[in-house]
């Protein structure tokens, strides 16, 4: 991995900001191929790019004598996307694992293969952020991705590939500065959880606490739709007489339909069970299967919840209820 500095004057030539996201400039695009049209609002996460809220799977058509089925494939054109550590981590450590686990999700794979990720250090954590509580951090980086730290005058860059050809010398002093900056930002965030915590949650399934914690939840699902790691979907169909298509769209464990069975039985009948599922899936069930938690501490759900439910507080309260902690 190489690293260096680009003078601000220069980095503007390659990177531009738009609506709080960073994009490559026209000039860079020429060099790096087509730019991915991820003009998202910041309130949505980067998952939209790989796992859109609606997506055609195949199309069918009565062609006079027989049914014709046409698979829909994504183009898989090269693209480049800068994300904050929490969103990038959601892709690299969570959705990649889920969708690229056998059987591989083809559309996700085609998009993912063509996507180059850049990670942008997070210099202004919000009051909702708690990435450090769940193993990430505002300076979290990954081998595969370019890492940028925007500074007043210049940009610190770490990674591999051609972009670094434009960098000037870095040096030890700058490294130290970076570390100091990282320390400063991290100090603002809550301290990490004890590492045994996720496993211990297992004992909380029957807790009385859940009644209390879930009471104010209205099962609206805003939290799950905006979460960069929630990946549940439903498959539905649209028809016009003798043609139509099958597609998938987001679904949420907060909804009654989600667990509704033929015959009308619902194993998660009330808010409590749905709420518990969401949090235990995030913090425990996923951990059991993939060895990490299904939450990157981005705080989107906390900001979105109309009723002030905070996963960080749920974690704290469960921890408090745990006599061994």
């Amino acid at each position, binding site marked *: 991995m190489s690293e260096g500095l680009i003078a601000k004057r220069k980095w503007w030539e390659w990177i531009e900001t738009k609506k709080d996201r960073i994009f490559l400039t026209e000039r860079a695009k020429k060099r790096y191929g087509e730019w991915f049209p991820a003009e998202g609002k910041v309130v949505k996460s980067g998952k939209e790019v790989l796992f*859109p809220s*609606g*997506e*055609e799977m195949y199309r069918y058509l009565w062609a006079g004598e027989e049914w014709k089925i046409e698979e*829909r*494939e*994504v183009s898989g054109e090269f693209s480049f996307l800068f994300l904050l550590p929490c969103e990038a981590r959601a892709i690299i450590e969570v959705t990649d694992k889920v969708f690229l686990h056998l059987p591989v999700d083809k*559309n996700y794979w085609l998009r993912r293969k063509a996507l180059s990720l850049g990670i942008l250090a997070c210099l202004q954590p919000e009051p909702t952020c708690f990435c450090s509580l769940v193993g990430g951090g505002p300076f979290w980086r990954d081998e595969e991705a370019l890492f940028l730290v925007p500074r007043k005058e210049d940009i610190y860059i770490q990674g591999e590939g051609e972009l670094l050809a434009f960098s000037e010398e870095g040096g030890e002093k700058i490294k130290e500065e970076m570390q100091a900056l990282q320390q400063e930002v991290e100090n603002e965030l809550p301290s990490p959880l004890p590492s045994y915590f996720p496993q211990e949650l297992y004992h909380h399934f029957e807790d009385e606490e859940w009644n209390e914690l879930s009471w104010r939840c209205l099962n609206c699902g805003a939290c799950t739709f905006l979460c960069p790691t929630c990946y549940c979907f439903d498959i539905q169909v*649209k028809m*016009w007489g003798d043609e139509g*298509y099958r*597609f998938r769209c987001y679904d949420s464990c907060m909804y009654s339909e989600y667990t509704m069975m033929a015959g009308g039985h619902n194993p998660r009948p009330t808010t409590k069970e749905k709420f518990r599922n969401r949090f235990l899936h995030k913090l425990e069930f996923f951990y059991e299967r993939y060895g990490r938690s299904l939450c990157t501490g981005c705080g989107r759900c906390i900001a979105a919840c109309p009723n002030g439910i905070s996963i960080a507080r749920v974690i704290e309260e469960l921890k408090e209820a745990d006599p061994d902690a």
Partner: protein
Amino acid sequence: MKNDWEPKIVAFLCHWCSYAGADLAGISRIQYPPNIRVIRVPCSGAVNPLYILKALREGADGVLVSGCHPGDCHYLSGNYFARRKFFVLHELLQWLGIEKDRVQFSWVSASEGQKFSQVVEETVEKVKKLGPAQKLVKEFTFYV
């Protein structure tokens, strides 16, 4: 707009008056444009505003709802309730900027075959003027 475009109009007709009115128009060989697709309903009061929205969503260029004249409802007052519901829907559509002429209402009795054909003619004319429906129509395709 192509010249040969003909609007598709879904007509919800009440069983007791307007459907019989349409029948009479047919029996009396009164001509009216073939653009309407009739759905028979027990009463104009049984037309849920969602039916109207659904017709537009599925690609109808216009919707016609027709029932008995006030006072003539087979169920006594179904059409009075309908009138309030449709009024609200109509005003709301207009406020959102969705052409309210696409949704037409009429009272046609079982003996008004002539009026029925007039209503259909007017409806088709109005919808033709607006052109093919675009707002509210479900997208044939979306991002992949």
